[in-house]
């Protein structure tokens, strides 16, 4: 397996602050000695990268050490920030190579959480919305098509909402767990492989968007899929791993060619000499960059659940949900439960945030003591806005403020958007009409769903 998260043995002081927060006890070593990541256990969430404060220091390591580590990690010249012992492998070189290749058509997607945090690395307040500036920056960088993961988040809701309704009405395996967080999926595969049928078969929005680039997009734009280079910008360090999974090639080749984090995008913007904060706002490209507010809230804990309920309610009852804001599933507690009335069904839902909090839930499930239908699980402390690839806080004492502001920015952006339900996204409706036919249909099954633990994919 290619390394995603590593700890530099020359820099680690053995403080074990990362060990304390690692959700799968993957960091090993003696106190005051350099720690190592056990790659057989690491779920690649990158919270250790966020936590680590042991930097290349002039006083301790000497003036030449910084340049050496900088080079070893393949960082762009624009990176002048401190380099820490725990880091995620940088993939900007691959992106820059593709951008410079005239034979490649580059398509980029950005996760919802990126736009509420990216501006922080340019000095903006925590939770400053920068969707328009980000789209403008990506165009300036030279991506041929600036699409959005949010489009696929809406598609995910169509598929996952339908899957839930299908499981509920046809006696499928319940509770169903969300599958958009790759670190959670990895954790389940490592620790509870026997419970894998509980995972939704839906791919994550990143992978749905990626496969649609090289199928629907290729068809729409009349270009060969092989020419498309698919890049995604994620708040997440684990998405790179997800994109390289052997299952993620349903377009006939790797669906997402490379993933960079929010921080790496900030580096790339600086590398290109773009004055980010003074960019005039631009729009994402249509149709695969059109999105609803339901997609945007995928970035916060409880958001996938809320988005699914907004659509699921209408799928079941045929009527629009009375209150679009489903506050019962919002919050920041590690495990929250709510009953939501959907027509005649009392839907029992759960939301887990912070992967350490999922263990008691899984143990309860194993013991047959979990009375829920649908559970959202996110690995990072408060969902993707607090992801391992997000702008890293200098002071951990700022975490509460940063998390709160990124979250409230996400919810207020959802409120501002003209369409707030995934099934009302006209470009998603068109995708089904022109290409996929229907949720859970044959084409969806082929492109948008997957299996876990290496299980074979059943073909209709």
């Amino acid at each position, binding site marked *: 397996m290619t390394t995603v998260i590593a700890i530099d043995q020359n820099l680690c*002081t*053995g*403080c*074990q*602050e990362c060990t304390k927060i690692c959700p799968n006890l993957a960091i090993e070593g003696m*106190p*005051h000695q350099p720690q190592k990541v056990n790659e057989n256990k690491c779920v690649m969430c990158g919270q250790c990268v966020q936590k680590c*404060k*042991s*930097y290349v*220091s*002039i*006083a*301790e390591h000497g003036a030449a050490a*910084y340049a050496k580590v900088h080079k070893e990690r393949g960082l762009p010249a624009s990176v*002048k*920030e*401190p380099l820490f012992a725990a880091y995620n492998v940088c993939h900007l070189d691959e992106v820059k190579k593709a951008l410079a290749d005239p034979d490649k058509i580059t398509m980029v997607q950005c996760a919802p959480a990126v736009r509420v945090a990216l501006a*922080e*690395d*340019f*000095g903006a307040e*925590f939770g400053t919305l920068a969707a328009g500036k980000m789209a403008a920056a990506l165009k300036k960088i030279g991506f041929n098509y600036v699409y959005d993961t949010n489009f696929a988040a809406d598609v995910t809701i169509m598929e996952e909402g339908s899957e839930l309704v299908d499981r509920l009405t046809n006696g499928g395996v319940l509770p169903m767990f969300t599958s958009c967080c790759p670190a959670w999926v990895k954790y389940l595969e490592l620790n509870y492989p026997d419970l894998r049928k509980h995972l939704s078969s839906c791919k994550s929005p990143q992978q749905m968007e990626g496969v649609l680039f090289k199928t629907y997009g290729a068809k729409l734009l009349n270009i060969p899929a092989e020419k498309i280079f698919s890049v995604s910008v994620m708040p997440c360090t684990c998405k790179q791993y997800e994109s390289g999974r052997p299952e993620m090639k349903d377009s006939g080749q790797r669906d997402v060619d490379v993933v960079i984090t929010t*921080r790496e995008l*900030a*580096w790339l913007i600086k590398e290109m000499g773009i004055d980010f904060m003074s960019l005039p706002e631009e729009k994402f490209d249509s149709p695969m960059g059109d999105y609803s507010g339901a997609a945007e809230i995928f970035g916060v804990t409880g958001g996938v659940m809320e988005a699914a309920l907004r659509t699921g309610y209408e799928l079941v009852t045929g009527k629009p949900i009375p209150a679009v804001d489903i506050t019962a599933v919002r919050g920041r507690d590690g495990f929250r439960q709510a009953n939501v009335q959907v027509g005649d069904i009392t839907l029992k839902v759960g939301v887990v945030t912070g992967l350490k909090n999922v263990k008691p839930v899984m143990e309860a499930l194993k013991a047959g003591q979990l009375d829920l239908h649908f559970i959202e699980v996110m690995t990072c402390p408060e969902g993707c806005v607090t992801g391992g690839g997000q*702008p*890293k*806080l*200098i*002071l*951990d*004492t*700022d975490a509460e403020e*940063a998390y709160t502001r990124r979250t409230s920015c996400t919810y207020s952006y959802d409120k501002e958007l003209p369409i707030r339900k995934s099934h009302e996204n006209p470009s998603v409706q068109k995708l089904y009409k022109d290409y996929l036919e229907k949720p859970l249909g044959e084409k969806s099954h082929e492109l948008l769903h997957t299996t876990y633990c290496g299980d074979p994919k059943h073909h209709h």
Partner: protein
Amino acid sequence: MPSEFGLFVSTDVSKCSGCKACEMACFQSHNVKRNNVGKTVGTISVPVTPKLYVTVIETASMPVQCKHCENSPCKAVCKQNAIRKVGAQVVVDENKCIGCKDCLVACPFGAITLLPFYACGKQVTQADSGDGKVAASKCDLCFEDPAGPACIRVCPNEALHLTDVNEERKQKNIAAAEALAVINAGSPERRLL
């Protein structure tokens, strides 16, 4: 009643993990205005220059930082008058510092080092040679920050605290007096009986 002695930050070694959060906080608090450092790592464009130095030995770790000595040897040896007292705190004026290292030699704790001196995101150049300037860097107890030392606030293990030796001594005196009051009644001759 403030101490007449200079306060300093000391470490509970049983709590310190050696994580360097204190060094990052120290650097950040001194460079918000000077070098436009914000709240995320991406806003840092200059080398991290702390004023305290986490030291890891085989069995423990702790930041070593200025004791704000009353008879400051660093201040005594500085021929440029770049080290002065602000109240009871010993503070370096980087603009006056010529990097002669006398203070490094004089400090018995190694609490001072020379680090590149940056302002407005660029290394300050020496007037004569145009080379990058370095300056003595040591704890100033965040004397410009009303909230007090940044290192103490950020420590995840609450290992750092501001030490007021005068006040601690008085407390020890009181505790000793309370203990002795019970057994010290009467003359030594009587206690021996």
